[in-house]
């Protein structure tokens, strides 16, 4: 079986048989797409769009969700107004040569899912920078690169989504992937009321869980028209 198995694995695009060490839960977005494709209506779909991810309206025949391998830059809150500073690192080196990246979406997940109308003073600012150095654990200094995203938000929803397709395309073509730096700070209009009260201004961010990067890639020769008849 080993020869047949390795040939079949190869045809599935795998060099060796995966043996997951710490299988992470299946992201619900992948599960939803998988179930939708399995449904009878999907089987009557035009075979030509088999290599299109309708949910994101991009070409692609492979969707991966990368877990974040970065770490917090400070073990405690670095500053009364700066709630969180974290390196984000997604190991895209598993992508094969022939894969063309067509979309990358960053998801920042929180554990709360409250929809109550936020009390006064619940605003935060989120900033995302390129990192300018290799994300090694314990690297003291912080070399922020270009600011990619700056957005204020109220911690209401389970997750925030950001389209990082251009950044990820750069990582897979010419620039080195040094990861990103995520900062979440108290929003400007609250800094005036910095109080030494018991409740930290950052309390609303305690529900931060983690981040992941959803990446869609396309291997043109494995898709529809451009594929040579065997």
């Amino acid at each position, binding site marked *: 079986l080993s020869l047949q198995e390795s040939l079949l694995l190869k045809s599935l695009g795998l060099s*060796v048989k995966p043996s997951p060490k710490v299988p992470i839960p299946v992201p619900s977005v992948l599960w939803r797409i998988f179930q939708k494709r399995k449904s009878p209506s999907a089987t009557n779909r035009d075979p030509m769009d088999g290599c299109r991810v309708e949910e994101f309206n991009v070409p692609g*025949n492979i969707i*991966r969700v990368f877990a974040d391998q970065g770490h917090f830059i400070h073990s405690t809150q670095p500053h009364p107004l700066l709630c969180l500073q974290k390196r984000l690192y997604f190991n895209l080196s598993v992508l094969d040569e022939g894969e063309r990246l067509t979309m990358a979406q960053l998801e920042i997940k929180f554990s709360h899912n409250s929809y109550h109308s936020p009390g006064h003073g619940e605003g935060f600012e989120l900033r995302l920078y390129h990192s300018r150095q290799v994300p090694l654990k314990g690297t003291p200094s912080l070399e922020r690169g270009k600011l990619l995203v700056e957005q204020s938000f109220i911690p209401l929803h389970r997750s925030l989504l950001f389209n990082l397709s251009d950044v990820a395309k750069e990582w897979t073509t010419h620039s080195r992937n040094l990861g990103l730096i995520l900062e979440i700070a108290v929003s400007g209009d609250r800094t005036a009321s910095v109080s030494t009260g018991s409740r930290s201004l950052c309390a609303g961010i305690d529900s931060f869980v983690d981040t992941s990067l959803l990446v869609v890639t396309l291997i043109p020769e494995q898709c529809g028209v451009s594929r040579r008849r065997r």
Partner: protein
Amino acid sequence: SAYNVPITPSNLCKPRRLYISFSDVGWENWIIAPQGYMANYCLGECPFPLTAELNSTNHAILQTMVHSLDPEGTPQPCCVPVRLSPISILYYDNSDNVVLRHYEDMVVDECGC
């Protein structure tokens, strides 16, 4: 495992059931879903005269005629898949990432000569 379907009287070219179970080959620890799928395969004769439902090419019609005149010289046409459909597989890759990958031509829907 090909289901031991009763041998149909017609051994004409048509799809036959073949269920691929990933746990049969010990892949269930990294393939999340599906646990298996109906791949099927093509089997059967392409005899002269080729009837319309055998999904045959003009060349196959010609070849069956030549085969009927000269069975030793020219073989019957082959029974092959003429319509296939894709499946998507959800699995863990070697870096424990979750991958949803689309594979074309994994299910035989129709056979022909």
